[in-house]
């Protein structure tokens, strides 16, 4: 007897895998980006099934709602066309796809055999917003702050790279107000 949870898990898992495969198969970048959004949404569904509703909501808000919007934005802005195939791409597909499948299966088999993964009952993981907040700001405060500094560095780097250097070598002046 299949439980509702198992059915939903399989459905979301199938959507995620189908989206990921579609991402690789599609030749137009915007279709690939949209498949990635489907993968993110399916993963959010899996998180919900684990009882991690906060992570699921953040997954949708941050990944599907913000990061992927910027991806799509850039694709639209650059008007990126259809992917071009070179002579090497046929060889890459013929060798790469079986090779990648074999590699993934090997890693999964080794992982399942030796890591001793235990199935987690639904709702056993701390997923409520309050629990996650307490964990982030008490137990994992230092990693959390280090991550935020890393992101700050990345932002500053992006600003420096994006600003057009002037003749004197300083940062670009404001064009208008």
């Amino acid at each position, binding site marked *: 007897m299949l439980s509702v949870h198992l059915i939903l898990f399989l459905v979301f898992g199938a959507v995620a895998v189908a989206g990921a495969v579609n991402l690789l198969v599609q030749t137009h970048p*915007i279709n690939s980006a949209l498949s990635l*959004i489907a993968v993110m949404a399916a993963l959010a569904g899996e998180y919900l099934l684990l009882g991690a*509703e*906060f992570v699921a909501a953040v997954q949708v*808000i941050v990944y599907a*709602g*913000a990061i992927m919007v910027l991806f799509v934005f850039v694709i639209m802005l650059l008007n990126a066309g259809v992917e071009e195939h070179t002579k090497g791409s046929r060889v890459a597909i013929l060798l790469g796809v079986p090779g990648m499948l074999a590699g993934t299966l090997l890693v999964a088999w080794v992982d399942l055999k030796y890591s001793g993964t235990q199935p987690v009952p639904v709702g056993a993981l701390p997923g409520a917003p309050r629990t996650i907040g307490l964990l982030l700001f008490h137990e994992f405060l230092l990693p959390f702050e280090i991550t935020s500094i890393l992101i700050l560095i990345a932002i500053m780097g992006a600003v420096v790279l994006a600003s057009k250097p002037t003749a004197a070598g300083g940062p670009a002046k404001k064009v*208008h107000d």
Partner: protein
Amino acid sequence: MPIWVYIVASIIKSALVLFVLLTAVAYTVWLERKVVGHMQNRWGPTRVGPFGLLQPAADGIKFLFKEDLTPPHVYKPLYIAAPLIAVVFALTSIAVIPFGNSITLFGYAFPLQITDVNIGLLIILGVTSVGVYGVALAGWSSNNKYSLLGGLRASAQMVSYEIALGLSLVGVLILSGSFSLREIVNAQAGHFWGFIPRWNIFVQPVAFFCYLMAAYAETNRIPFDLPEAETELVAGYHTEYSAMKFAMFFMAEYANMITVACLATLIFLGGWHGPIFGPPILQALLPVFWFCVKIFAFLFLYIWVRGTLPRFRYDQLMAFGWKFLLPLAIANLIATAIAVVW
């Protein structure tokens, strides 16, 4: 409650809420035309029905029977999907919005809400942030420079103002300590000094201001309706759409307005709290009435602003969002956090 009662109740509630929402969308359009008309010294719709009240029905019939043109140069799958995405996500977020306390029928208590989840606010934010794809993809798939510019403007604007919108809500969340919309409303019951209602708008006026500004930008309304600025972009992202596909964008815009009004009512205006009096049947209906009155007031404010203010320039819009609204929201958040810890 047995499972079949739950399922039947959910279906009835969903159908009822959807019907009310779609009717409200249609009559918000009528209200807007009427109010803006009077503000501009004209009558607005008057011909179809008394006071033009049947105008939404006439518009709907017209949209249904109009020829549905698909220009030859569009990217068809996304051109068709874009209005669907816009309208589906606009209508979805109503599912977690509570309209009042629960009512008891046949011995079962039914909450006046399609589904009560403990992260209701996050779900609304998530659904509205995904809704931007409808506009962005419509602009791109139309293969038209005006549409593309409109779509780009819309996605940049929505992503920018979402941050200020979210931060303006965090102050309220700190005060109420929950993501559940029902608990946020319940935290606003009672009065200060016996006469001022304990609504968050009086505790967090700066947050309300930030929310209001960000909400106008999120719903692409005047003064921030740059994505469809007629003078520069023809009609923006929906230039190439006609008939029912165009109507879907229209419906999505007004449904988003109603969602934003619902959220403002729940979070800042005390939800369904208001004076309760009279016989039991009146006492049961008054909370829903107050909720609707507050939403109406918020929608009227929307229309009033549209009739009053001109449109910003795009660089002004971005500068306002990033250099003024975002720091203001962060300052409000820090001040609130310090005050709560005190």
